[in-house]
């Protein structure tokens, strides 16, 4: 069957048991599932962005601009639910984790391919449920994505549906998580010890643990809110003796670690891309790897910093403020190591690296303003203002979003066997970068001045900031849609790439065919060296090739 070059048909053309569309929808190939995730994710992302754009349009001027308050409340809720549960949480792990995690550790697939496919179906069902809520009578949920009790029990909108959607999405996330943990433990290629794994694997692995351990807690919490609405169980509703603060605790026990589910994989991608384009080894491999674990660990212990104004005991305020400060350190370590990796490199400023540099800049802003909010008195002032909105968009979008775009541009040729127009991509990058910062930076200022978040209307003194912000969205959104447009176009029509190693990377995905064959490797490689060992700009073959 194999000719002398071992040239096999790529995963895109591979014909399994099923043909055509079914060959995709029923495929258990991790790469095809990754692509399925990518497509569905982009669709949901587009919906989420459109809602975001509507929010910005409404806030262009005080009073009613285009929509009424009820619609506005529903839209920011949907924007949050879609972006959090359907884009940033699954984003990098489900798309690039699925596609590249097995390849990066030298495996043919994940440990449980069927569960992997199930996880995608759950994702789609959850997503559709969340969207369906818009069309049903009662209207979409208007609680904000946090579903705070007792408002979420009182409102007559379709909160229950949104809760079930989130519950199902949680299952999808859990399945991805347990798949990744088992895969990393059981399917690493011979010779790939823990400290020879690419850094993105450390990130995905740490993320997977949070997915496993924290997701069930939000699952049960959201289910209880649904019970509360149906049966009046009274577990959270203060009218029946419940404690709404306890709801917030349980919600954030998951949702704060979830923040790290969102950002850790992006950090992994950054650690992957910098050495490739700096043509040198990563600085401080062990520190970066261990900081991922430390972030996962400490990230699970700081949830109550979302509740500094809720009236917790002073002991809690003290402990959670202190722990929040400490969680900043591993992130800082990562940033310093990334910057140090550029030192004495031979830097090739390609589009993926541009996104990564923007990531570092924006993540640093997001991280530092995060530290500010860990400081009790500052948080008491800026909590629930647009300062927070700016902060988490700098982390979630400026960080994870840009990490996602970086990964897209970095792995695009490997995934599709085609190349995009680099000039166009570079110009689009500047649109995205400038638009993003114009959109979100003014929110820091008006937040400090006292502009609360989730506001439909505002005092005239804030208008100038809102206007600048909305102008920013007019730069950002078209740029992103342009990016989606050209990526789709070049994925189908771009110049073909058959070269194995487009960027000169040293990890395993660059040593296999472009696009990869059905089971990635004809023969499982043996790994002998750490990743990113560039020796005098020459590629070192770090594993013995199949003969």
């Amino acid at each position, binding site marked *: 069957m194999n000719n002398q070059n071992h040239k096999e048909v790529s995963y895109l053309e591979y014909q399994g048991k099923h043909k055509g569309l079914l060959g995709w929808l029923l495929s258990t190939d991790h790469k095809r599932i990754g692509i399925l995730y990518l497509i569905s994710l982009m669709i949901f992302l587009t919906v989420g962005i459109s809602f975001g754009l509507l929010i910005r349009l409404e806030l262009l001027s005080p009073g009613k601009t285009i929509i009424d308050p009820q619609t506005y409340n529903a839209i920011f809720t949907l924007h949050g639910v879609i972006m959090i549960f359907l884009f940033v949480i699954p984003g990098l792990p489900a798309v690039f984790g699925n596609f590249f995690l097995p390849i990066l550790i030298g495996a043919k697939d994940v440990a449980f391919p069927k569960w992997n496919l199930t996880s995608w179906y759950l994702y789609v069902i959850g997503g559709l449920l969340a969207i369906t809520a818009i069309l049903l009578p009662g209207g979409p949920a208007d609680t904000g994505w946090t579903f705070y009790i007792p408002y979420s029990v009182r409102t007559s909108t379709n909160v229950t549906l949104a809760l079930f959607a989130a519950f199902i999405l949680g299952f999808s996330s859990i399945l991805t998580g347990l798949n990744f943990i088992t895969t990393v433990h059981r399917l690493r290629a011979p010779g790939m010890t823990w400290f020879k794994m690419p850094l993105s694997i450390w990130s995905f692995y740490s993320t997977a643990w949070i997915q496993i351990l924290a997701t069930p807690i939000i699952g049960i919490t959201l289910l209880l809110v649904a019970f509360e609405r149906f049966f009046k169980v009274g577990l959270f509703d203060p009218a029946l003796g419940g404690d709404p603060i306890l709801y917030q605790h349980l919600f954030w026990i998951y949702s704060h670690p979830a923040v790290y589910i969102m950002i850790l994989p992006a950090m992994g991608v950054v650690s992957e891309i910098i050495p490739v384009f700096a043509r040198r080894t990563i600085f401080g491999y062990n520190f970066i790897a261990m900081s991922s674990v430390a972030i996962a660990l400490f990230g699970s212990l700081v949830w109550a910093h979302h509740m500094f104004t809720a009236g917790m005991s002073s002991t809690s305020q003290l402990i959670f403020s202190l722990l929040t400060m400490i969680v900043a350190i591993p992130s800082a*370590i990562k940033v310093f190591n990334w910057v140090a990796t550029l030192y004495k490199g031979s830097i090739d400023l390609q589009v993926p690296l541009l996104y990564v540099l923007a990531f570092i800049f924006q993540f640093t802003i997001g991280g530092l303003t995060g530290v500010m909010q860990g400081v009790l008195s500052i948080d008491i002032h800026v*909590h*629930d203002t647009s300062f927070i909105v700016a902060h988490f968009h700098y982390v979630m979008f400026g960080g994870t979003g840009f990490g996602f775009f970086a990964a897209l541009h970095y792995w695009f040729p490997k995934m599709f066997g085609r190349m995009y127009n680099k000039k166009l991509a570079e110009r689009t990058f500047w649109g995205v970068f400038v638009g993003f910062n114009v959109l979100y930076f003014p929110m820091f200022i008006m937040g400090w001045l006292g502009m609360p978040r989730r506001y439909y209307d505002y005092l005239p003194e804030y208008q100038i900031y809102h206007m600048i912000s909305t102008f920013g969205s007019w730069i950002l959104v078209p740029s992103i849609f342009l990016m989606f447009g050209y990526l789709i176009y070049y994925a189908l029509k771009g110049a073909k790439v058959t070269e194995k190693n487009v960027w000169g990377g040293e990890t395993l995905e660059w040593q296999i065919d472009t696009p990869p064959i059905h089971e990635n490797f004809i023969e499982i490689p043996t790994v002998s060296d750490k990743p990113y060992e560039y020796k005098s700009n020459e590629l070192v073959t770090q594993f013995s090739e199949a003969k």
Partner: protein
Amino acid sequence: MFDGVSNFSQSTDFTFLFTLIVSAFFLLLVTFLMIYFVFKYNKKRNPVAKNIHHNTALEITWTAIPLILVLIMFWLGWRDYLKQEAVPDNAYTIDVTAQMWLWKFKYPNGKETDTLYVPVNTDVALNLKSIDVNHAFYVPKFRLKKDVYPNQNRKMWFNSSELGSFDIACAEYCGLNHSYMYNKVVVMPKDEFFAWVNSEDKYPTLKQLAEQNLENSRN
């Protein structure tokens, strides 16, 4: 930017300024180095990269220095917080009731208003309660915020040193008219305040305050 008017605003602003300066320093440092390296070690200028694996001394330095700095920040915030929690026993206490979507204020002698009037340079304590969903009592100029819950009591206090009227906002999302749950806190001269609160008048006449505001706007 630093125009707070309560007894807490100065220390909160100082804490903010400190963290802001530290943050700005690190942001500029990281950004500058990044851009500098990209130009200096561009592949045209520096075709051969040098592999540097790690430098333990450097790692320890950039772990320890941020750690010390964030601990200082923590301590500043904690110090401010403790002051805010220590409600003085003899404070003038006003009951605040939040509901969708308005505030009600009740003074010790039973008088009720929908705008909050307080005497200047006096310790004022607020008992916060909600009768429906969660709200948050937020006065940006005082740098104060506290969530308000149904069936649970919350307490906060302040001492405003400046006459004038300042915005109160609801900062915890509470439904349809969340953004219209705005009101004012009016800080009045002591004698005027007590004269009014003990009188039959529903609202105080704000003569002196109006002059004060005029002066402010002239400055």
